[in-house]
């Protein structure tokens, strides 16, 4: 028998196709608190980095944004578990419209990984935001970037959900 959760955050995860984050977690009842902690860390990091301009990344804000832009929240939730709080902030800033100004990856097999991303505002004015990581788990953000040529020039733009399908619950 299935149950319908009254928790808006759980409903959001399930509506966004991320219910497996709960169902595959062991013990299952620790999943939501763990996911909330990840979001809380990202929300705090956004505040530390961006002050008054920081986006809010609480479950409540994501639930509200899902009503306006489900495609953005879905993409964001797909990187909730693998990547660091800084990269979650970066992903959300791209979803807000920030431009990928610079992207550098330095990697040597079994030795080191370094990711450097600078975001700039398409509206001008603000200083670039720099996001760096030496944790290869953060490379997961790269597969969500939109790839484009504008006037035959290279552009990474946008942050998009992967089209995932398959079981959302353990066999």
């Amino acid at each position, binding site marked *: 028998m299935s149950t319908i959760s009254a928790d808006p955050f759980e409903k959001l995860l399930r509506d966004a196709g991320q219910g*497996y984050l709960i169902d595959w977690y062991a013990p299952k009842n620790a999943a939501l608190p763990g996911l909330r902690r990840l979001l809380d860390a990202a929300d705090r990091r956004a505040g530390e980095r961006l002050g008054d301009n920081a986006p809010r990344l609480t479950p409540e804000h994501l639930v509200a944004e899902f*009503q*306006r*832009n*489900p*495609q*953005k929240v879905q993409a964001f939730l797909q990187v909730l578990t693998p990547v660091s709080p800084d990269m979650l902030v970066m992903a959300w800033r791209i979803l*807000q*419209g920030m*431009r990928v100004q610079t992207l550098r990856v330095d990697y040597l097999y079994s030795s080191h990984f370094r990711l450097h991303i600078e975001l700039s505002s*398409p*509206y001008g004015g603000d200083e670039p935001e720099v996001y760096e990581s030496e944790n290869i788990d953060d490379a997961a953000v790269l*597969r*969500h970037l*939109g*790839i*484009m*040529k*504008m*006037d*035959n020039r290279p*552009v990474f*733009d*946008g942050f*998009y*959900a*992967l*089209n*995932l*399908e*398959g*079981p*959302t619950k353990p066999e």
Partner: protein
Amino acid sequence: MIGGRDIIIPTTRETEALDLAVRAIQNLWPHVVLEDGVSGEVFAHYRAVNFKGRREILAFRDQEAAAQWDALGADPSLDGTLVHFLLSDGALTLAVDAFPGPEILSFVEGVKRSLQQDIFRTTITREAA
């Protein structure tokens, strides 16, 4: 845009396709004015757009072009200043001038190629993700 041309791009990711197209036009026209083609709601920029359920967006090159379109309608003097995005089941349509200039042609090609990237075409089974 008298007798304009429709470029139809098949996609199963309709909302994302519209999102991508709006981001792209903002790259082309930094001062773009966005307007819902159904409700007339106007957005100052991409960030202000709530995409859920939205099916049509008009992108005017800038405020002046938007005002001219209001005043003159589809006048030849306004060629190259408007792109109309429409979602239908399984497709994003870009309505442009009948004889679009190189800037618009390049933009259309860029959107089309971007929507052909794996991220928009490939379904990944969860075990492999």
